[in-house]
């Protein structure tokens, strides 16, 4: 997967969690939780969906890497390159 593929997948996952989320207005460099109606349980939904889709285990101490859309992409890029 390249950066665009990862971005599309993330937006799809977030869109499934909250169908009313305004993803077009998302600033990729600002924290997701500041812009969307997402709480810690929703965040865990994102982690679970990444696990289900890509068999990706994200250790809890690396959750801070997933704060913004761009930081997510940066973190996931090397892990999903071969997919």
């Amino acid at each position, binding site marked *: 997967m390249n950066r665009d593929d990862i971005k599309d997948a993330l937006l799809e996952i977030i869109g499934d*969690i*909250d*169908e*009313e989320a305004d993803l077009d207005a998302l600033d990729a460099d600002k924290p997701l939780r500041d812009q969307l*109606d997402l709480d810690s*349980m929703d965040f*865990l*939904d994102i982690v*679970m969906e990444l*696990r*289900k889709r890509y068999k990706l*285990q994200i250790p809890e101490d690396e959750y801070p890497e997933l704060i913004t859309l761009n930081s997510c992409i940066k973190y996931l890029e090397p892990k999903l390159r071969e997919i």
Partner: protein
Amino acid sequence: MSRENKNNHERIVITGVGLAAPGADNLADFRANLLSGTSGISTLDLRYMGVHPAGLCSFDETRYRKKKENKRGTRAGCIGVYCAGEALKDSGITLGAEYDPARTGVYVGLTEHGTVETENEVYNISQYGYNVDYWTHHHNPRTVLNNPAGEITMTFGLTGPHYSIGAACAAGNAALIQGLQMLRLGEVDLALCGGLSECVGSFGIFASFRAQGALAEHEDPTRASRPFDMARNGIVISEGGCLFTLERLDSALQRGAKIYGEIAGYAINSDAKDFVLPYSPRQSECMVLALKRAGMQPQDISLINTHATGTRQGDIEECKAIRAVFADCPKTFVNNTKSLIGHAMGAAGVLELAGNLPAFTDHMVHPTINLDELDPECALPNLVSGETRELPQVDSILNSSFGMVGINSVLVVKRFLA
């Protein structure tokens, strides 16, 4: 406080109804279906079980909360939030104006809770080789027993007590009794109470009734629920919900509330006998105690709304109990609502009560349907079957709900007279 004022402070009245029943999402439509003898039963194709008759509810799931919250919560919570919103709207109460949200209690009757969510998660991890890393973090908040009541408080900002009442299929009535008691104790000023069921989501509940020989089958699903009929062969499982607003009469009168009826008497007792089989002597005792608390005689009851579910022994036991108490009551009529909507488990008692409350104003007794050949052991005098029966006046309803492991509940509700 004068004697009359004290009395009105302890008299508890129903002032709002919110419901989701198979075939109706409001009381007016529900009543119309019951009076016309229109079944709400369809079929459900359930995991591992195949197609079975079932009662399914259709309502505006996002009227009171977002789709995202429905996804996170439970089906019981979704039904509960809808019923609570509808009951509050129907009552005309503005929370924060007439009543303090901190003095509002939410009491929800459940037959069971967590079965659906647990089955779904076990299925989910089965798709990942039973690796529990794939078990959802939503499992615990979804399956704690207060879940549906708690989902209601979060939606409406109710900060008083909330909890569930587990009483098998007597749970809806038991929750109504809890609400009444909390109002009389002065613990709350407004009680939102009733029952909910999401049982149609559980293959285990269907499979267990089938293993017990108590799951209804019929090629026409609308004919599958047939209490008192010779050809009955078990229960039709339904989902649904019904919540009432209960208030003390004095405060209801003060705000000019519409009053559906007064809960005059109630009782809960236990068979202390068997896991599944009902026991008519205890059912009779429960009816007698409810009448005593209401200060009424059996002859004072206009309508007995039965619990009968369409199982052979259950129906017969209830009829024995009714015969024992209502031996000489020519003005007492009998009907059954499950023949039309199936068995909504924790919601059954309250949905059935709600469907019959309009009898106080329309004077109609809705029919028991699918009664083609009456079981002689269920032949009660004045059993209303096939067609709606109009009475000169309906003054009182005795509503029974019985549950597994031997729990009986009876409510006596009177037409409101100042």
